[in-house]
């Protein structure tokens, strides 16, 4: 068990005592918290880098340190309280919550589901039933890419058995598409298409929004933290949204913050900026600015799809998986 488990309540009590007698200012000790982001540093995490660097989290009494973990570990660590915040796929939240892991999704980061079916320009059908008999490359039979693929097939009346799946555990499915081993691949809308274009292949996408809507990745916290320190959670959510909005208006700001946090990005600024701009489109989902509010329609539809696919059995209801901390702009 992490010693932090015992330390945090003590610090929280101390800080609570401090903040009662003084307004939160840089001179007051901040509560150190951990944010877990997926796999490795990336320009897409710019809002978190910016919020930390500009002191947006500090304004709410939080000193955020960032670590990188795989999705499976991330969810468990946040649920167990060994980290306070995480960013995870909504579909993984559904599965893990159903499996008994006590986390909640509290803020939308990606307004659009980031995974899509990608193929060479002119070959991608708009009707998923036409995917029958095709060869499709995907990293593996887990995670949001897998869920999205099965959701698309399901919407076209197909199952895994109606197509040929080829797994790329090294996440290099673009190679399969480039050398013709597969007809289509799953990929991230702000990543693979750019890589393929750089290799000379123009592509089309089949996305889930019109066919089988799924909610995109967002911020998660453990039940315990939400109960004991709701103010910290709403503060974190607000600070993150502020940074996200700023970057959406001025992508360069996000790039600079990312370079500070991840110096290696400096070597490929152009690529990073292109990825960041594509990412911002996914955050905004066509609105004027990212909202951060939970997309109830996408969640309801996604929950139903995941249930139909057998990933969840419906024993845990949808409203236990999410917490509405951000007011949606049209409510």
């Amino acid at each position, binding site marked *: *068990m992490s010693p932090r488990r015992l330390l945090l309540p003590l610090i929280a009590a101390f800080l609570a005592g401090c903040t009662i007698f003084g307004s939160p200012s840089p001179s007051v000790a901040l509560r150190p918290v951990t944010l877990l982001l997926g796999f490795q540093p990336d320009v897409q995490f710019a809002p978190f880098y910016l919020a930390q660097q500009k002191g947006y989290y500090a304004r709410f009494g939080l000193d955020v340190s960032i670590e990188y973990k*795989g*999705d*499976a570990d991330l*969810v*468990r660590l946040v*649920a*167990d309280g060994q980290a306070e915040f995480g960013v995870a796929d909504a579909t*993984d939240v559904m*599965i*893990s919550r159903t*499996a*008994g*892991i*006590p986390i909640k999704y509290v803020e939308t980061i990606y307004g659009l589901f980031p995974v899509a079916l990608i193929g060479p320009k002119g070959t991608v059908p708009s009707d998923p039933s036409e995917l029958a008999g095709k060869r499709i490359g995907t990293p*593996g*039979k*887990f*995670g949001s890419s*897998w869920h999205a693929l099965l959701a698309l097939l399901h919407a076209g009346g197909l199952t895994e058995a109606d197509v040929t799946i080829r*797994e790329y*555990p*090294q996440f290099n499915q673009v190679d399969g598409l480039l050398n013709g081993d597969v007809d289509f691949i799953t990929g991230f809308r702000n990543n693979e298409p750019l890589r393929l274009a750089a290799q000379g292949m123009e592509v089309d996408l089949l996305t889930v929004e019109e066919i089988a809507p799924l909610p995109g990745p967002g911020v998660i916290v453990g039940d315990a933290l939400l109960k004991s320190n709701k103010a910290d959670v709403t503060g974190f959510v607000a600070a993150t949204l502020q940074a996200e909005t700023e970057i959406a208006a001025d992508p360069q700001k996000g790039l600079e913050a990312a370079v500070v946090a991840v110096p290696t990005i400096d070597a490929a600024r152009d690529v990073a900026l292109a990825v960041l701009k594509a990412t911002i489109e996914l955050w905004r989902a066509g609105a004027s600015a990212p909202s951060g509010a939970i997309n109830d329609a996408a969640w309801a539809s996604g929950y139903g799809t995941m249930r139909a696919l057998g990933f969840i059995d419906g024993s845990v209801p949808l409203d236990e998986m999410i917490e509405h901390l951000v007011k949606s702009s049209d409510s």
Partner: protein
Amino acid sequence: MRRVATTLASLAAFVVAWKLLTVVTGTPNYILPAPEVVAERAVRAIGSGLLWEHTAVTLSEILLGLAVGAATAIAVGTALGKSVVIERVLSPYIVAAQSVPILALAPLLDIWFGGGLLARVLICALIVFFPIAIATMVGIRSADPLLLELFRSLGATPAQRTARLEIPSALPVIFGGLRVGVTLAVIGAVVAEWAGASSGLGVLINIANQGLFDTPLMFVALATLAVIGIGLHGLVVTVERRLTVHP
């Protein structure tokens, strides 16, 4: 009978200690599941056929990998043991192959050999090779020089010397290598599966962990691997007792 009783007793103690650990530390089931949770999940996994489906795949990789790896290792080890020249020539490559982490090599081997059962058997065989080859080499060299002279005085051919003196005297050491090799074969099969298989206990671990967030199922897979390792090791020990003489 006494051996069975001691084993059961120690197993019971282990389960009790495990349960105590989860209770005392208060770890949730999605991080360290309690033994009864794992047991219940195991029963479901066996009943649905899920466990056997993956176990059969991994078992075939292990047994074939062992067969290929051990046979090659004993042959190469015998050559190494009998010829200092061969040892000097081959050693650097053998040691190099052993030193490169198999976790890094496995994906390459998977691609080179077509990504199917053959690739996984070869990865498994590679992991198993080194300890058995070295044990064989040491064992062959440990043949009693007095017995070697006896064989010479009886006019034995080199082939007779190898088959009837060097290999029988090497057997105890070779079996030591086999004990190690057998447990490594289990690791090798899992590593091979992680390089790109679609079924097997290694794959089940990943599916349970990353896809299903089902920690008890992951533990069921781990426990099954442990059982396989223990079973194979026990088999080697039994065969060893029958084939070798302990003075």
